[in-house]
């Protein structure tokens, strides 16, 4: 049964008439055209569908849209503010922290969530925090470095 679900999406109040059991990943991609959030496994194992819900990194591929009522969702498309990249996005570019780029949005969202909780993580804490996001190309080394750089920059309040 369809019902109206309201939430905040990338800073905008959003109402959508929808069956609340629909998967958030497909709703974001197909209803809202936010295709930066990727399907990787559909079971929460790989993390390419990671988004922020109330600042927590969450797997959108296993979440019914009904669960985000009244919450604040940020996808990769919502990180850039007025044409200015988020420090994590910038650091990923500076460190060449990607190859094929498919897992990248999920990595960036997960890292952003990690830094919100722990603004100055050690390399070990970064690895732990990123553990469940999978990258097949092997960009791990650069991703750890990028998250570290982003943390430094965010601490400086830039």
């Amino acid at each position, binding site marked *: 049964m369809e019902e109206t679900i309201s939430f905040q999406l990338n800073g905008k109040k959003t109402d959508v008439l929808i069956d609340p*059991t*629909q*998967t958030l990943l*497909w709703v974001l*991609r*197909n209803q809202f*055209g*936010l*295709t*930066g*959030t*990727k*399907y*990787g*496994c*559909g*079971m929460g*194992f*790989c993390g*390419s569908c990671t988004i922020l819900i109330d600042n927590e990194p969450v797997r959108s591929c296993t979440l019914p849209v009904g669960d985000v009522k009244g919450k604040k969702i940020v*996808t*990769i*498309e919502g*990180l*850039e503010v007025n044409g200015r*990249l988020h420090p994590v*996005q*910038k650091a*990923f*570019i*500076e460190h*060449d922290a*990607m*190859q*094929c*780029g*498919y*897992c*990248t*949005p999920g990595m*960036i969202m997960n890292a952003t969530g990690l830094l919100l909780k722990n603004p100055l993580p050690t390399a070990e804490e*970064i*690895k*732990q925090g*990123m*553990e*469940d*996001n*999978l*990258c*097949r*190309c*092997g*960009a*791990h*080394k*650069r*991703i*750890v470095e990028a998250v570290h750089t982003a943390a430094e920059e965010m601490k400086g309040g830039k």
Partner: protein
Amino acid sequence: MKKEKTYNQGSLPNKGRREIPRRDFFKLLGGGIIVFFLPKCANDARPLSAVPERDLTKDYNAFLQIGEDGTISCFTGKIEMGQGIVTSLVQMMADDLNVPMERIKMVMGDTDLCPWDGGTWGSMTTRHFGPSMRLAAAEARGVLLELASEKLKVPVSQLTVDDGIITDTNDPKNSVTYSQLTKGKKIEKYLDVKPSVEDYTKFTYVGKSFLRQDARLKVTGEAKFTGDIKLPGMVFARILRPPSHGAKLTSVDFSGAEKIEGTKVVRDGDLVAVLHENRDKADEALIKIKAEYLFDEMAVNDKTVFDWMLKADSAANVESSSGDLESGLKLCDKIIETEFNDPYLAHAPIETHTAMAELVGDKMTVWAATQTPYPLQDDLARELNFPLEKVRVIVPFVGGAFGGKSAYQQGIEAAKLAKLSGKPVMVAWTRDEEFFYDNFHPAGVIKVKSGIDKSGMIKLWDYSAYYCGTRGAEILYDVPNTRITDYSGKENAPAVHPFDTGPWRAPNNNTNTFAREVQIDIMAAGARIDPVEFRLKNLKNEKLIACLKAAADKFGYVPGKSPTGRGIGIALGIDVGTWVAQIAEVKVDKKTGHVQVVRVVCIQDMGLCVNPEGATLQMEGCITMGLGYALTEELIFEGGNIISRGFDSYEIPRFSWLPKIETDILQRMDEPPQGGGEPAIITVGAAVGNAIFDATGARLYRMPMTPARVLEALKKV
């Protein structure tokens, strides 16, 4: 059971299908200067029998255009899948045309716009495509200089080019831009010269590090992968899959699926699919289908497959031999006979096989995540019975491939469903389908019998590879009596592999390098000689010696007779023309068998390295990905049923595995470029295996080196 698809030239439709008539290029692209070129070796480069090769003799399979507005575009059927050629190719062109990199556009993997190409694999883009493209760029530059000479009324020798502006050296005010020269022109050039090694010292861009050109698109989510395409009226397809390879559909009842509102069920023989504009509903409908199957599976599983291969009726092909094995045997003081096993591996790219197909009028367009757009176009024309010019394949960004996307079943499926339904159809495989239908890295058995004399010189090398091919099986060391034999299936005999196999990053080289370098290590330990010293003693190849010495130096290697307890392992290898030396350091938990790789040093000689930053990224990627095949990756199967179908059961490398990675490239500015996307992965298995031995004295002959296998090997110490 169907194994490898093989098409010969004779089965291809052969008339007027190969090229858009040349005059049409200008209609399609506007005027300017177009230089057509044919990458060297394109005819020799056959990756796998599944890729039908078109006749290239009179064709030019790439071209570059200096448009009327001065834009420089290179049109090629190559694709970007993360390896970074969008950057390295642009660097090369920028140098030869004397323009900034931003001025150059790569148009890739679109069969309507780009000329034919066999596919993107084998680290061939920079090696073979690059030099030819540079020649074409030089040719275009020549044409521009001639035009400028006419326009500025000075001889070519008096002209210089900088930033796309040609200037009279005697009068800097007398100058003209590329776009002023190409305006209103329609000039075609066909390049027949083979590229030769040139003076690389004059380069502005080549040999220097540049960050990825596509990074901004990738960090903002703007980069479009196949699954991101949206078309009006499109539907998502979920396809009914058999429970195992070899199962035959006998009956199907889709009445339950049709009860879900908005569902359309389509069938074409064994292809049964549900279509729905809502992806979740398509998933729901699919599970309502009832189907029955007849099973005809091979009686083999991941444990018995090695014996199965050895017992198979194989064709033996001696690939190389030297000296005499019998007399070699007599020279030996120690003989070592070993059998190595390597399992099936999945490619497991994070983007699954995905395709979108749309039929407009009589033309089918297919967007697909594939390494081989033209072979897909060929197969689509055949399967749909369409003329080739009525099939267009476009490859958007590809989310990882590693060889696995040289297969493109999903593209055929999407097109058939679009034709049946009259709607644009998206086929995006689930992770389960991706594991099930992968063209796996083949399992294989290697047997080696080798021997050393009293002084530690290798005198005998008898090497047999079963069902895993011999790429990377070169001996490398200076051995007088040798034989390398490849055992494979006999012609027309039933297949030995129970499902499709195909190229997996540095195809088969991982298997062969593991076997050779572990065997070398066993001999070094047997001779009580330090493993670096033992290798140097038996090597004559100067490139490899240089790589090994550089690696030992960077590592700060202190000689010792293995097992030293330190956990240091060495491996050498060659792939796609590139030499690699690697040293790994591990910590082994003797209670649990868990292996943590703490440090990897890798040195690579890849000839001219166009973009050291991009090549370093590839080396790091290779080392990290290689830890997977070394430590955990193994396809579990029973008959035709694939049991590993997710990241829970098939474990790929994670952040916690990450060792300290240190790399160096021995830059050779005066040598032709070699491959970069694969070499550093080949040595990981052996370096880790040898390090485990050095740490514990436990020798592993089978990958992956899981905790259970490490514990098993520890019992034998």
